[in-house]
């Protein structure tokens, strides 16, 4: 295992080392000490390595991640795992706004709560939040899954495209064009797998409701003007 202490190295040195991994001679286990809220920790990594961050991080931790497993033993600032392509990012604490924004693949697990706009514009990523999520989550979400074991705030799934949302607790309000939908067997199966991948064993898929797009805003119609 390699350890990088951010009181001794800077972010550039950290990311440069991480970007050198991949294609053969990998050090596959990394530990980052004293992040102290630094921004852009472990961004743009493209290697099957595991990175354990011991403390809280600032903006965009794990941004555009490919393949790597990033675990933050603390909380994460805005835009954690933004535009993630593949791999896994786990936040042991809470996550701030825009968690998993525009993510295109991989799994983001937030063991605490997530703030507003969780999964905004998501494009294929799977996000599992053990706690609650804030308002405007899954805004314009295009594809992927958002699983919320707690409650969702206002305007969930506003202007939603094809992402699938599962909420176990209450939903304060649904956004424009987002509706509750039937839980069919394929959804049940997908949810079961996501909970398992997120290491959640004490919650059953039956406890969730599914939300998705009513697809009424897909083609312009003046009688829907209030929703635009």
């Amino acid at each position, binding site marked *: 295992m390699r350890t990088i202490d951010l009181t001794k190295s800077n972010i550039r040195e950290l990311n440069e080392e991480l970007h050198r991994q991949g294609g053969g001679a990998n050090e596959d286990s990394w530990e980052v000490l004293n992040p102290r809220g630094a921004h*852009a920790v472990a961004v743009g990594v493209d290697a099957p390595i595991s990175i354990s961050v011991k403390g809280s991080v600032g903006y*965009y931790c794990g941004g555009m991640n490919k393949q790597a497993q990033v675990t933050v033993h603390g909380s994460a600032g805005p835009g954690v795992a933004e535009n993630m392509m593949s791999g896994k990012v786990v936040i042991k604490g809470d996550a701030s706004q825009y968690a998993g924004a525009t993510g295109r693949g991989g799994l983001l697990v937030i063991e605490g709560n997530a703030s507003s706009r969780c999964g905004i514009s998501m494009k294929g990523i799977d996000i599992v939040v053990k706690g609650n999520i804030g308002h405007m989550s899954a805004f314009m979400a295009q594809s992927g899954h958002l699983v919320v074991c707690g409650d969702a705030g206002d305007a969930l799934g506003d202007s939603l495209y094809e992402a699938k949302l599962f909420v176990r607790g209450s939903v304060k309000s649904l956004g424009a064009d987002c509706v509750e939908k039937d839980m069919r067997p394929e959804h049940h199966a997908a949810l079961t797998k996501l909970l398992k991948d997120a290491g959640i064993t004490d919650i059953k898929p039956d406890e969730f409701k599914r939300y998705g797009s009513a697809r009424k805003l897909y*083609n312009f119609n003046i009688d829907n003007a209030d929703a635009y």
Partner: protein
Amino acid sequence: MTYHNPQTVPRQSATFDDYALSEIRRAAATGIYDIRGGGSKRRVPHFDDLLFLGASISRYPLEGYREKCTTSVTLGTRFAKKPIELKIPITIAGMSFGALSANAKEALGRGASIAGTSTTTGDGGMTPEERGQSKTLVYQYLPSRYGMNPDDLRKADAIEVVVGQGAKPGGGGMLLGQKISDRVAEMRNLPKGIDQRSACRHPDWTGPDDLEIKILELREITEWEKPIYVKVGGTRPYYDTALAIKAGADVVVLDGMQGGTAATQEVFIENVGLPTLACIRPAVQALQDLGMHRKVQLIVSGGIRTGADAAKALALGADAVSIGIAALAALGDNDPALDDEYRKLGTRAGCYDDWHEGRDPAGITTQDPALSQRLDPVRAGRRLANYLKVMTLEIQTVARAAGHNHIHNLEPEDLCALTLEAAAMARVPLAGTDWYPGKPGASGF
């Protein structure tokens, strides 16, 4: 005896003219706002309202074709490890695959590469055609983030964070169902055939402090190699330029209201934003106030048609200009040779702007395979290269006449204005005077 009321000739209201009335009828019939492509069609103060002074006894000119007048531009010298070198001060603006056909994108890449300049991706990601043909490619980072991925980011020669566009500052992209083909749908990760409205604001940052961190992230992902541009629509050019500089931009791209778009509401195109002419001096002022003029480069766009327009923008302090509509015209958009076909679409050559409908007979703003086929990317690319070379020669001609051996030596003192409005906006004297409205120390204003 019958009484004849003397008649006046029919008179149309200047306010309720043909266009205004047709728009009212159109809205009443369809219940949808008018969407179109192109830029503002109204007349606003523009580069036509400025003139160059040329050399005289106090300044001598350079000999055309013999004494050198250099046109190269380096972009991204502030932070990027690999700045961009362009042979000419004219770049091809960001236009998306989706809005444009793959052949049109390829033609832009070919033409720009021959002429020694860059092209820019758009709201739809990077296509292999464009990366393949563009020697220098700028990759846009837009609110929608369609197709965004770290591999393309690393393949790019520069990254342009798009905050806004002159045609629609504060508005997001639009691509109507007719143009969402299988390939476009897949690249954007959207269902086929929907009317797609892209976000107007970035999903994971707002404001200048966040932007600074976003730029840091993009630099970290790409090893601090690539110049990072920030593109803004012309609204508050002084503050936007200052804030982009503060956030760490290498290059500021400033797009005035005449700037083209692939598809936006008419109300936006004609009524929101500042004319290009009014944007440049405040932006240059911000660069100068922060000691960053020529360190952070300024690219100006919106209604640039000729070398003269470009030279005037450079004289006002820009480092380079960028073109959209003019580049499409060079490829063959709105060509009179296609007039019959334009008329079938209810318009005529020179007026066609329903680019969102995807029925472009020139094969440029379409995803229809049969129509796209009509554009030969090699020939069209050659036409673009010719046009760019002519523009460059024109800039050199004017610069030499003003006595400058590099196009960046053009300066406001080389210019005068034909109208009070242009004098005020460009901060150059009204022709024949030493005065412009708002001139520091000038009385009477």
